[in-house]
């Protein structure tokens, strides 16, 4: 099969994923998981290289367009969790379209970074792999320390006494720590005694992530009776080159970090990128989140095609690696070219579908949109993971509501991954699971 055909298949994947990405909470990994399971049937239609290119196009499309449910429906995936708050705020200021496009511009910056780095990615990744792979445990522990220590009080400036102010400040900080610990506990339960059937174990995290990140935001919108004003379709982007560069640089660092390290997710990349751009200006932050998400998803998958390395980072590569190994070194450069084309195509699709989303929320009452989104989220959990999934989603939602109630950081929900994985790497995971009665 020639290069052009492979690129065309990738573009088809992008178009397919762009449509799927509009369905709130439907993560591309869930779809790909089912595709991999039915790879035998697909083999009559697509050869392995073609399947890989289709998945490449799909992840590019998803990385770009999953912004739409995050901003317009407040239903993000884990890697886009930090875009929701500024996104919703801009939506209420009639600037939802600008927020979506800025995220897309951030993703395009991420695309440029990946293209620029692609010639040196092989040697650099090989070096980093050798140097850093023995150090993953303490690096995760360091992320936890930073996550807990870098949350600053948002209240406590008023009070009759020093202690009263201190208590007010630490109510929010304590809620953050509580969120982190409860998420970690939930992570332990999922890891050691999941109620999701083993045959669909790859969907294990879906109900937890939806409960932690998506359902609480939709519920808050419903409870608060959020009404979205008529949106303004801007004809230009309101950002300076300096802010764009700052957001893209921070997003690239966060995204590359998350893409390279196994078990480090896009949410952590977004967290680091967000912290590095903790400026007054939200535009830079939004760009950083777009860049980080794109670099995490697409960059992580690109590592799988590196000649001689074939690093399986991220869910997509992990699933594909079970049935496929890139056949030739030349394929890597085809993949880079396809990624570039799909990235541009998906950006234009983002513009198109953002306008369609705006038409939808302009015509339909936002409460109805939120109710339908909530029904979709719950249905998806039930369809993919059954009652067991709902049993996970309910406590996850309760934990995910804590940040909304106390004004603490939502990123503390990442304890669901960080705590069990770090403790496992420290060799203490099994002991703690035993103490908790999980094994």
């Amino acid at each position, binding site marked *: 099969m020639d290069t052009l055909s492979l690129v065309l298949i990738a573009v088809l994947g992008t178009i397919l994923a762009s449509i799927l990405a509009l369905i709130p909470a439907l993560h591309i990994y869930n779809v790909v998981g089912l595709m991999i399971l039915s790879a035998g049937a697909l083999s009559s239609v697509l050869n392995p290289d073609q399947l890989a290119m289709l998945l490449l196009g799909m992840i590019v499309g998803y990385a770009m367009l999953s912004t739409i449910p995050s901003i317009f429906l407040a239903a993000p995936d884990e890697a886009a969790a930090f875009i929701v708050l500024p996104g919703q705020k801009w939506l209420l200021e009639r600037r939802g379209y600008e927020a979506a496009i800025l995220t897309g511009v951030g993703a395009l910056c991420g695309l440029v970074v990946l293209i620029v780095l692609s010639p040196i990615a092989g040697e650099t990744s090989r070096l980093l792999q050798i140097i850093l792979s023995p150090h993953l445990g*303490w690096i995760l522990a360091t992320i936890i320390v930073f996550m807990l220590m870098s949350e600053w009080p948002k209240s406590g400036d008023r009070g009759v006494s020093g202690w009263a102010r201190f208590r007010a400040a630490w109510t929010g900080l304590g809620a953050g720590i509580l969120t982190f610990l409860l998420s970690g506990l939930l992570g332990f339960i999922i890891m050691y005694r999941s109620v999701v059937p083993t045959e669909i174990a790859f969907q294990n995290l879906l109900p937890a992530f939806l409960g932690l990140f998506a359902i609480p935001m939709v519920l808050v919108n419903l409870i608060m009776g959020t009404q979205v004003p008529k949106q303004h379709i801007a004809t230009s982007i309101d950002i300076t080159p300096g802010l764009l560069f700052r957001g893209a640089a921070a997003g690239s660092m966060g995204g590359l970090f998350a893409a390279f390290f196994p078990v480090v997710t896009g949410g952590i990349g977004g967290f680091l990128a967000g912290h590095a751009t903790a*400026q007054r200006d939200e535009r830079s932050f939004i760009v950083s989140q777009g860049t980080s998400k794109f670099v995490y998803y697409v960059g992580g998958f690109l590592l799988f095609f590196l000649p001689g390395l074939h690093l399986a980072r991220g869910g997509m590569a992990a699933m594909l690696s079970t049935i496929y190994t890139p056949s030739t070194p030349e394929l890597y450069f085809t993949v880079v070219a396809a990624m570039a084309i799909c990235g541009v195509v998906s950006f234009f699709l983002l513009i198109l579908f953002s306008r369609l989303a705006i038409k939808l929320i302009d015509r339909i009452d936002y409460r109805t949109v939120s109710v339908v989104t909530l029904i979709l989220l719950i249905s998806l959990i039930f369809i993919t993971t059954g009652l067991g999934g709902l049993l996970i989603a309910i406590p996850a939602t309760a934990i995910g509501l804590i940040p909304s109630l106390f004004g603490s950081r939502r990123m503390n929900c990442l304890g669901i991954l960080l705590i069990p994985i770090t403790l496992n790497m420290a060799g203490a995971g099994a002991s703690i699971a035993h103490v908790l009665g999980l094994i």
Partner: protein
Amino acid sequence: MKGISHFLAGVAAATFVPGVVANAVNGSFLIALGGFFGILPDTIDFKFTRYFDKAEAIDPDPANLDPQWIADQLAASIDRAGETNRAVRVQLHSIKLGTDRWRQYTVRFDSDRNEVAVRIGPIVNTSQMPYPDTEIAGLKTARAPLKSEMVYTYDADMNVDIFSGPSFAFVPKPHGVEVQFLPWHREWSHSLTLAAFLGLLVALIGQSAQAGMVAGFGMAAHILEDQLGYLGSNLFWPFTKDRSAGLKLIHSGDAIPNFLAVWTALCLILFNLDRFSAPVQHRSIMLEPVSFLVLALIVPYVILLSQYVIGKRKQHMRVEAARQADLVAELQETEV
């Protein structure tokens, strides 16, 4: 500097402690302790000390916005400090109107006219972006003249808007009442003496000289990093009483110095992991020191610092004003 800069400086400092990296390969998490102590000084100030600072509150009423009242309150506090010859501390509160709506007001300590001026501004969001058409028409700048001589060299207006407002100490000095920003910040918590003491304490508690060095060096890295700016810290508390002047090389809130601090720390961490991970006899270093340091550090430094210096030359800010601007930037950064 930003929290992430301090944190990574602490982690980087930890990787220089002999044996720490090699132990990390075997499962030790001691390096994370460097990050903890790297961010600890600001944690002490912004999560503990500030709440126990005894300051008089100036809390404007959102329903009855009166710039004259704010100006009079500030002027009275400054005069009282001058008359009683005792320092007076004041906390200016922000005016919160909703979840993402704050009424901005601007304070100017005008030393040329020896007065305090206050102007009520627009409603802003938490990103400090003003909502259109929210200025209050007809509300003029209020001025309150001072009886005591005021020493204040910060020549920019100070906006009070989101989260907590700034606090001040009005300190009587022979030449007049000096206006000091955030009097509770970078005092005892930013002391090299305290870093040495805590390092010793950690060593004793953990029965590990290595842990003590990681803690002490991590905290010292924060303090020394802050010293690059204009304000500096109370370096040898309890032996010194006041914050010393910094080296005046950077401003703590500037993007380029913060990026370079993060980048330098990451490069040093990588460099040290490469050098120290394996036992001495089995070491095969992958990063050739000269080319790595030139490519990873010197080239970005030359490019970004030259851009930074050119940008700075366009700004003319007096040293004292820059010191106070440093503090304001730090307050704003940590509130995010």
